[in-house]
């Protein structure tokens, strides 16, 4: 699955990896806001911000091409709209959409690839996301692999028994098999949730998830948050002063 690579990157070692997730979230949100509200001199601002992100990627020792390619996942969607704008006689608008969404995606990757997702989700508690929702996200991420694998096994098992020979004319049986498989998968996910809950209770769970890594916000984190969030603002102010 394509997100495994992000997970491997996130377990790397660098000064960005070591920073508190909350510091990175602050920096990320500032960056996204800078991009989202920009409207003037984008032709200069976009390369500036891209350079900034590249510096961040280098600092985090992430593979540059890998990250750049991954951020391109947004291009198909954005591309359609860019084309639509082009046809509507607004090529500049199309390019703007492309640039903004690509930069935003790359920024998100920079943070997700330097912070293990569980820690990142914990960090989001500070932004006011309800704790319950975050715990749901943790479970979702943990069992995503397990259940996806079951789903794949099921469809492979069905394929192994003949649905692979494409029925162009009569999709009936394979359609029913897919519906049956989803029904079973649903019921199993439901039952598994009960098992997990039991296992948690058996180990003294009382509704609160405790952290093994106590996150102390150190001075280095504060400094990092300041620098990383001021940088895009500075780039934008400079560009707009000079060009605009």
């Amino acid at each position: 699955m394509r997100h495994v690579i992000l997970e491997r990157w996130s377990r790397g070692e660098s000064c960005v990896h070591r920073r508190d997730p909350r510091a990175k979230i602050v920096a990320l949100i500032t960056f996204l806001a800078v991009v989202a509200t920009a409207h003037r001199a984008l032709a200069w601002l976009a390369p500036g911000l891209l350079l900034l992100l590249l510096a961040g990627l280098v600092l985090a020792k992430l593979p540059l091409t890998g990250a750049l390619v991954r951020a391109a996942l947004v291009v198909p969607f954005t591309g359609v709209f860019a084309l639509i704008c082009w046809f509507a006689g607004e090529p500049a608008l199309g390019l703007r959409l492309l640039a903004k969404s690509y930069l935003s995606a790359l920024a998100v990757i920079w943070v997700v690839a330097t912070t293990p997702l569980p820690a990142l989700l914990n960090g989001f508690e500070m932004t006011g996301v309800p704790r319950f929702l975050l715990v749901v996200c943790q479970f979702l991420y943990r069992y995503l692999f397990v259940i996806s694998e079951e789903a794949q096994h099921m469809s492979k098992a069905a394929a192994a028994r003949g649905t692979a020979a494409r029925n162009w004319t009569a999709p009936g049986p394979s359609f029913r098999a897919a519906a049956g498989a989803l029904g079973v998968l649903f019921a199993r996910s439901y039952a598994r949730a009960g098992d997990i809950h039991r296992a948690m209770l058996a180990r003294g769970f009382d509704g609160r998830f405790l952290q093994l890594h106590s996150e102390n916000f150190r001075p280095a984190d504060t400094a990092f948050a300041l620098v990383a969030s001021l940088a895009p603002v500075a780039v934008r102010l400079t560009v707009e002063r000079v060009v605009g």
Partner: protein
Amino acid sequence: MARFLKSCYGGKAVHIPDGFLSTPVWAALDTAAVPAVAWVARRAQRGFDDRQAPLLGLMGAFVFAAQLINFPVGAGTSGHLVGAALLAFTLGPAAASVVMTAILGIQALVFQDGGLLALGANIVNMALVGVLAGYLPYRLGGAGEWRRFSIFAGASLSVVVAGCLALSELLISGVRMQTSLLGISLAVFLVSAILEGVITLAVVRSLERIQPTLLQDSPPHKSPALLFIAVAAVLLASVGVLFASQAPDAIEQLTEHAGPRSFGWLRQAGTGLAGLALIYGLCLAIGRTVSRNRSV
């Protein structure tokens, strides 16, 4: 073209990336989403115990996994489940909203599917309004002969409404689109919606055979008239919002001075938010009336 659009829309759900929405639109929708999600999360947690956290997480993982199972629909094409309506039928609307919100969050962070600042918009479209629009017909259809239709209608409606809202938000934000393209998009939404309806119906029926206790009870009484009115009203409202947000004069204003000093966006955002509130209120009001009637 329709096929191309469909593949680029990711099949069904339109996850808006960052950079597309104008500041007032994403800011307004984020502001709207935060208290709504908080409320929904509290509600989903209540009534059950801490068992809910693993359950909802696993249901989210299920929806992800469900997209790996392809449903052949003839002529070499296949579709897959989006799941908002199925979640609403099985977990109830509040819990379904929480699960959809979690899914959108993970998609934005890990899969670069939808933006982070645009998360509020995506949550409103899919996790809040989409779920509610899907649950409404299920509630109104009752357990009788309209049940199958209401399951189908709910699932379809959730897809159409979410798609229309997303597109309206894009239009309000100044993305230009000719009316003909808008028509094609609408057609794509309708096809996807019918697919979602058929798939959801098939899954619900297989679930009924395996373990019927997993489905939410639908009220024994049935009110087909109300069902049709509600479905039609929500459908019309969302298509209406879509076309209203494309009003050419407003677009003109917006693109000419798209700066924060321009007040064009105010009217635009106003129209959009009003439409959104209208649909949301409509779903909520119909739901309320029905449950009141029933409890008396």
